[in-house]
């Protein structure tokens, strides 16, 4: 049981460091590109599969 507690306490140490780093970075206000990611995720139109396209062309040609 005590081993778990030691592990948990170690995590608290690391977590506090992370929290400090997180707060520091938020306060320093380093926000930049918030424009392109929400737009880029919209850009994935369905493309024709080149294999199927060539296969259907061959079919057309045989007709």
């Amino acid at each position: 049981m005590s081993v778990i507690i030691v592990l948990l306490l170690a995590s608290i140490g690391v977590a506090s460091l992370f929290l400090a780093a997180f707060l520091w970075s938020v306060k320093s206000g380093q926000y930049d590109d918030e424009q392109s990611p929400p737009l880029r995720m919209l850009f994935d139109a369905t493309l024709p599969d080149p294999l199927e396209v060539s296969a259907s062309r061959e079919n057309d040609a045989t007709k």
Partner: protein
Amino acid sequence: MLPNKAGLFISTESEIHNHYKHQASTMQLEKFYYDNKIVKMFAYATILWGVVGMLAGLLAAVQIYLPAANFNMPYTTFGRVRPVHTNAVIFAFVGNGIFMGVYYSLQRLCKARMFNDALSRIHFWGWQSIIVAAAITLLLGYTTGKEYAELEWPIDIAITLVWVAFGINMFGTIIKRRESHLYVAIWFYIATWVTVAMLHIVNSFEIPFSAFKSYSWYAGVQDALVQWWYGHNAVAFFLTTPYLGIMYYFMPKAANRPVYSYRLSIIHFWALIFIYIWAGPHHLLYTALPDWAQSLGTVFSIMLIAPSWGGMLNGLFTLRGAWDKVREEPVLKFMVVAVTCYGMATFEGPMLSLKSFNAITHFTDWTVAHVHIGALGWNGFLTFGMLYWLLPRMFNTPLYSKKLANNHFWIGTIGIVLYAIPMYWAGFTQALMWKQFTPEGQLKFQFLETVTHIIPMYVTRSIGGTLYLIGALIMVYNLWKTVAAGKLIENEYAEAPALPKVLETHGKQHWHRWIESRPIQMLVFSLIAVAIGGVLELVPTFLVKSNIPTIAAVKPYTPLELQGRDIYIREGCYLCHSQMVRPFRDEVARYGEYSKAGEFVYDHPFQWGSKRTGPDLARVGGKYPDSWHYNHMLEPQSMSPGSIMPSYTWLFDNPLDTAITPAKIRAMQTLGVPYEKGYDQLANADLMQQATTIANGLKKEKLNVAPNMEIVALIAYLQRIGTDIKAEKKIVAQLP
């Protein structure tokens, strides 16, 4: 470009695509295929388990006012059907919904096929096998007795393995992605994976004593804290964060609009995962949990409004300027109601965490109404919206009928309203009746009166649930016709430039970018962020002894009582009966002395419960004679006319499994329960002696029962609950 048969947003998409292609032309384009087949498999599983889960819910709902609907079989009785319903809806319906959404969106957001097809299949079939095993074992009565974590240890191990397979597949995809930026939805998926892994492992510490049964590693107050830390965060990280990721992907896609504020989504994410993990103790307000932990839970629950509503508004504002599409498009209708329900539930949650409000609502049907706003509205409707959007696309055909989808939407919405309002009403009414005193200072209502009074509400609730199910069946038909008309694009062609080995940097990089492009660091940081909350709450309770004052008179259960307790757990008694008298005037008057933390030190698992469909049992020991319990378990209505409890006739036919007693005693010894060394071999002799005493006592009242029947063990346990503390009083009284 081939004409898109779905015919949606074709002009804008092709324009964007051309622009994108032009940009990419300077780089080498890689050709690859998205795996749609696995998405289809998860979609079908979502639909199947959704219907099964709703049917189980309906059966449970009907049994509340019609106990005979259990068909007089243990397998179909409320105490076993209810966990099947909750597990099916949460882990089978929503679980497969998560995987469907993740497998579809992750591939596209990463511009990469899933990391490994075999892992995808292992994940799928592994998860479905777990669901089947869960349903069978729960119906057979194998349960840990911890809500939403009922599955026993072999299944817990299987869940861990499948979850790891999912994790490898997900992180593998993220690592081999062709898009350097990790879109906000992916962060939510990562946080989900990490936190669910942590929750599941910590809460599943248990010591097996047979092939399918185990005892919780923790006891009493500690078990309650770990369990509700888990239970609350299962809602947070299984029902909420993955669905927020899904919202951030599918809502902009369906509306063809970027998310309202990307900055808000960053803040939403970090704030939510930081705060959510702390709020678990709000499930234990006014219980024997240390007061400081309760207050901590309340404070963080109230803070949760901010990120939750930030996320909700971010979702709804995404539709700015596109509300005309909501009128036309059933997909968006479902999503709007889903996000609205999310907003309602996340406002209500913090309110329920206020102690003064919780004093009224806890243990009543209010809780049931609250979770169903989340389950039916948020999870259900977002899943339906996703299915209506996804399947036509993957099958390259328009939806069979928009009209049917609209009908589904309205029937489902009315179903939610008819479900929730009666339950709020029932909860509030019953709580007020519980607390009502006569001018003479007596309790005004018997417990049973407060139950029979709200039966009309229970009936209305089941009508609401039926409507919701009908809506889902309409969807099944609609999607069936859609799928039949189209052909699945199993492997969808895509192309994208490879991710450069060294990412370009322009001047000072955004601080968050560093994390976004590094999934492993991201994983570690998410874990740390969520661990901090859990750790700070759990460690003190384990370490600080004063939090759980020991009571000298509290002794371990006798072997017969222990066996009886396991029957109590098996039959799911805790789903309708609490074992926690809160320190209120009415509860002390109705049940007896309020519960103390030290009373539960040998309870592996704790059985405090969360709902009082029947009365609290924390002080039931010694309240009635053995014969009353005997008759009450055989035919509850004979002792309490109008009772809605089912008969447990099989307890009178099943002989007690005494072969397992030594193993149970040894497991308890391992957990620190102070049975004498070697007691496991003596336990059955003590067991038979106590059982014979009870059977002889019953015989005097002309009730003939063999001492080795399960009912005897259950009576022994019921007569023990909450009595130790009375011995304490005697000890004190004897002092000079």
